[in-house]
């Protein structure tokens, strides 16, 4: 059902785990399937210096969270905001149609983290 790439990220997730000293966290969920994703980011000079995830969800949700951490790492926050679900699914050699929304979760999670970071910057 899943591509080799998806299975690779599912079995060996990259950048997995809570980040205690994150600059911001993006928290998103899908009420239909009940899945939940946290994206943690650390920013240096407007770039994503470090990123990690925690996910409660299906195999695709885990693989897409892992993939987005790889795609986003080192990018400027403006570049990172532009990562789409198709970029993620494409980098994983595709997802089954019913699982496309799982990659939404990952791109939304990252955007939410960046928005939270920006909001915090404004306050400070």
């Amino acid at each position, binding site marked *: 059902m899943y591509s080799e790439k998806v299975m690779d990220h599912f079995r060996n997730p990259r950048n997995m785990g809570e980040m205690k000293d994150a600059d911001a966290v993006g*928290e998103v969920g899908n009420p*239909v399937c009940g899945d939940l994703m946290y994206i943690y980011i650390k920013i240096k000079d407007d770039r994503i210096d470090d990123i990690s995830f925690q996910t409660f969800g299906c195999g695709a949700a885990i693989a897409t969270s892992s993939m987005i951490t790889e795609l986003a790492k080192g990018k400027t926050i403006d570049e990172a905001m532009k990562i789409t679900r198709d970029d993620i699914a494409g980098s994983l050699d595709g997802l089954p149609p019913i699982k496309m929304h799982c990659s939404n979760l990952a791109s939304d999670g990252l955007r939410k983290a960046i928005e939270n970071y920006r909001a915090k910057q404004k306050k400070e």
Partner: protein
Amino acid sequence: MKYVYLDYAATTPMDPEVIKEIENHYRETYGNASSFHTMGQKAAQILENSRETVASFINAKTDEIFFMSSGTESDNLAIKGVAFKSKERGNHIITSAIEHHAVQHTCQYLEKQGFKVSYLPVDEYGLIDLKELEETITNKTILISIMFANNEIGTIEPIKEIGEIAKKHDVIFHTDAVQTLGKVPIDVEEMNIDLLSASAHKLYGPKGVGLLYIRGHGVRKGWGKYIEPLLHGGGHERGLRSSTENVPGIAGFAKAVELCKRNMKEESEKLTKFRDKIIKEITENIEDVYLNGHYTKRLPNNVNLGFRYIEGESIILSLDVEGIATSTGSACSSKSLEPSHVLLAIGQKPEDAHGSLRITMGRYTTEADIDYFLEKLPPIIEKLRKMSPLKKGKKYMFDPTYETDQHH
């Protein structure tokens, strides 16, 4: 690599004796059972012998067994057949909230056709309430359709008691015994069952062969004919199911039943032992896990466990990587995102209903298979829990009392 199949509720491998039987008939009994010549009559004879084998297994009469193409077709004919034939008598059907989709979606379809359907709730174990069943019966009720045993959580319903209530109120009683035949003794007389559905591929027979037991071959005192065919044509199966009979497949079904007759007691003891071992080991050694379904009113081959904070698909995917085949709810729900209607009906929160694992064993399961599974599972659960943002005592996003960004 070691491959351990623990998904017998989805389907079973065919028994080698069944394969041999089917192959022989494909080669040697290729006649059409309706043909007048010797080859046709030979096929007709096999068909009748098969009917007899199956009938005696559930204490039915030979002419009350009707062969179909699947469990799904059998459920459809039982429910729609009665509804369409007896709509003058009444338009009310009673079923349960935990039926297989073959029953549930058929009932929903009939609702669109103007029938009234009551979906009886179940308790935390998946059992219906007999008092509530009796109170739900009206003078418009024509049919009660309650499954013998549930395919996801293995709960066995009080069939004999349901049969008594149905008889008392002169309502037809259908039971979906697709998961039950061959695992638990069935006696349609003693249990007052009027219609019973079964499917060969769940008991080491071929896929695409099912049966419907029809009391009185479709005639009932005070009702006359009570079942309308869905397939019209050459009038096979006493006019209730036209289609040239799948004689090799049916003979394979009969062979499978014969083997169950021989092995059921022994097999059921073995599987009960495995079942209880898995439940004990896992609930004792892993935290935040619970059993779905009943401890004793349960199919001998079914275990269904809920693991908090993680999601079912990621568990089965991880087990599959280790060469172990299991499933979440039913095989069909792997194509849908909604949590299982069965787990919701037994009162689970949606996030818990997503975290279930169904292990179903069978004839070829060995103690070594169980030990392999028990060795591989705990590290998988641990790894997935590490990956999950959900933790004990932490509020969940979809919890009504949750406040956003509370943890910052």
